[in-house]
């Protein structure tokens, strides 16, 4: 009777431990070693202190610190790459966006704005439901030398005419918020920003339809398809994001008259290959389940004819063949 007890409880415990090692601890050990991306630097002591404030006052419950490769996330910056998190411990990717993502907020908002906003979010952002953080400020009669008071619209300033100055807590927090800038990567134009979105630079005229088995390349569909599904990572200008997402402009696979590599990658995804001498840290997701053969042919042809690329067009039949070959 002891035997059954050991079989059930011991067996289920052992099975669980094996699963946990395989899907949690193992990958974690591996991923903890992800090297920092270019321009990703450790925080200064003051910024680090601000990060602690961010955690202890729970900003993370309303704000995320991760940008997904989805069109709707473009306003927050480029998609986050693994190397971005090398120094982000404890991780604060977050799970809810009651407020906007803050990954790149340092590039969007200035220091003074941050102080005003923390003191009273409604002073700068009507309709906001973010709590005020007045407890991070002192209200004083006279501003000490060398300290800048927070400028506030009269309706939001203390009624008794006191001036508002930040505490150490607020200074550290704002230093951290100002450090939240996705590293500027040379050759990469940020197309996010809360303001307008930079319009994707339209490529030079696409070649005329190359008829093949009743299929005619639809340049407009190719461009829309690319801009909505691929540009988040490869960028509308085809230049990618250095070390994270490879450029398709001048790319060997895209320029190759044999489309196997290009189509196979789009259909089945890819990760960790060396492209033009560089190993990219991002993931290329598979699109076979999402796009039909014609969509893929249009997108592939758009890539093959844009940004100075000139390669032989592909047909949906070729896509279908590789799709059937599967992986």
């Amino acid at each position, binding site marked *: *009777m002891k035997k*059954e007890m050991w079989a*059930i*409880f011991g067996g*289920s*415990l052992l*099975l*669980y431990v094996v*699963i*946990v090692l395989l*899907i*949690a601890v193992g*990958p*974690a*050990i591996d*991923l*903890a070693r*992800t090297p920092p991306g270019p321009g990703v630097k450790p925080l200064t002591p003051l910024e680090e202190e601000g990060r602690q404030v961010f*955690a*202890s*006052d*729970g*900003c*993370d*419950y309303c704000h995320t610190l991760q940008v*997904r*490769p*989805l*069109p*709707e996330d473009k*306003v927050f910056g480029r998609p*986050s*790459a693994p190397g971005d*998190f090398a120094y*982000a*411990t*404890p*991780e604060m*990717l*977050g*799970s*809810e*966006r*009651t*407020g906007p993502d803050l990954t790149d907020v340092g590039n969007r908002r200035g220091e003074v704005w941050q102080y005003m906003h923390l003191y009273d*979010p409604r002073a700068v952002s009507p309709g*906001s*439901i973010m*709590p005020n*953080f*007045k*407890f991070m400020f002192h209200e004083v009669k006279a501003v000490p030398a060398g300290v800048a008071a927070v400028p506030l619209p009269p309706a939001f300033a203390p009624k008794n005419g006191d001036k508002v100055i930040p505490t150490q807590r607020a200074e550290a927090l704002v230093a951290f918020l100002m450090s939240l800038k996705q590293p500027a990567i040379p050759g990469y134009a940020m197309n996010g920003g*809360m303001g307008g979105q930079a319009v994707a630079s339209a490529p030079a005229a696409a070649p005329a339809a190359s008829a093949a088995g009743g299929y005619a390349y639809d340049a407009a569909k190719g461009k829309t398809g690319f801009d909505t599904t691929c540009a988040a990572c490869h960028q509308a200008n085809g230049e990618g994001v250095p070390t994270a997402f490879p450029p398709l402009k001048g790319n060997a696979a895209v320029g190759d008259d044999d489309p196997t590599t290009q189509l196979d990658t789009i259909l089945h995804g890819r*990760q960790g290959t060396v492209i033009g001498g560089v190993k990219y*840290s*991002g*993931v290329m*997701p*598979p699109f076979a389940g*999402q796009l039909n053969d014609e969509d893929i042919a249009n997108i592939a042809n758009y890539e093959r004819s844009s940004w100075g690329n000139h390669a032989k067009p592909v047909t949906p039949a070729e896509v279908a063949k590789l799709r059937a070959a599967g992986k």
Partner: protein
Amino acid sequence: MAVTVQDLSRTGPTPIRGEQDDHELSSIFKAYTVSATFWLIFGTAVGLLLAFKFGAPDFWAGKYLTFGRLRPIHTNDVFYGWASIALVGTAYYVTVRSCGTKLYSTALAWAGLWLFNIAAIAGTIALDLGYNWGDLEYREWPWPIRLVFLAALIVTVWNILATIARRESQDIYLSNWYIVGGLLWTCIICLVAVLPWYQYGLGQVTISGYFMHNAVGMWFTPLALGLFYYAIPKVLNRPIYSYALGVLAFWTNLVFYPMLGAHHFLFSPLPWWLQTTAIICSVGMLVPVLGGGANYLLTMRGRYHGRIESYPLAFLFVGVLCYVFGSMQGTVEALRSLQAIWHFTSFTVGHSHFTMYGFVTFAAWGGIYALLPLATGKRPGQLGMAVHFWLATTGVAIYVISLSIGGTIQGLDWVHGKPFIQSVVDMEPYYLWRGVGGILMFLSHLVFVWNVWRMTAGKPGDAPSPIMQSEEAGA
């Protein structure tokens, strides 16, 4: 008085009479329930204040009452204070009774209760003082406090295993599989979450994805399911529909559930294979969920009218339904195309209340109403249970529906590229309705306090025996 599976399949888990014979067990069950009830009231009072702050962000905005400090206090207290303590209390009762024996050690059970409470009190204070371990969901308590919680688990599993080893029967009733499984797995979960060596950058993100979901599905789910397997047949006075289906659900849950955590990080920079495995396992979860759900519902077959007279059964019934539908909702949410809309919206908050409240909390209530009167010999009032049931059910329905609709609108606003503040403004009415639901839920908890009082120290009420007449007798 050996109880074997053969007996169980004939008569249900245990004999009906003579349940007040074990005073030690009864006082332990009482103490766990009372202590859990305290955390329920405290944790949900904080929750209500949080809901209010969505409409009045400047209300009580001081350092110790700021939104970001109270939110983890709410989640951790209802998790580790209310649901954990309540379910461990019922687990003790279920194990001892289904093994037809005495508890191995009363002292260990009391020690466990102290440890659970010390952890919850220290955790609450730490979070309010701003000692938050990086906003990592459900493991915000500083690590020494989480070790106290782990100690409570170890004490409990030791006690329960030793009790099972004492049983006279050959077989181990299914409830105990789930209870012991839940306790053992959760020890591993707590350990993995505390060890520091791989918790850097993306490595820690992996652990967060693993932890937040396993802490729910490998802890609360098995404990609540174990309770279902005992309480439902007990109340209905008939055996569980299929023992084998229960066994199948046990193993499939064990294989699929642990892997689905990363679905909280779809589209994050975690490796694509990890995200995909999570999606596949979320779909695989349909096997244990539908298997388990069908088993409970088939056990109740033909006795649905009984739900109206028997409130313990009504609570258990809602718990089963929310288990099935809440889990299926989780599966659907995990699909990439839908995640793109719902992820990061209030929809997720609706989902977690659907499951943690509609399923886990209703299961705990059903279990307490079904079993505590047997232990103490004191029943609550029928009206008290009715008011509790209808307030809580209406409240959680309003809560979940409003956040599901609101969350969808919020997500679509983002997809349509509206300015962010639009999504904040559009959520206002839904936040308000969420608050209305929350008020009803909280009121129901006050009624629950009254009912617990009558089942323990106070004057007993008029409710009929939680155990329904068996068909033979009824026919």
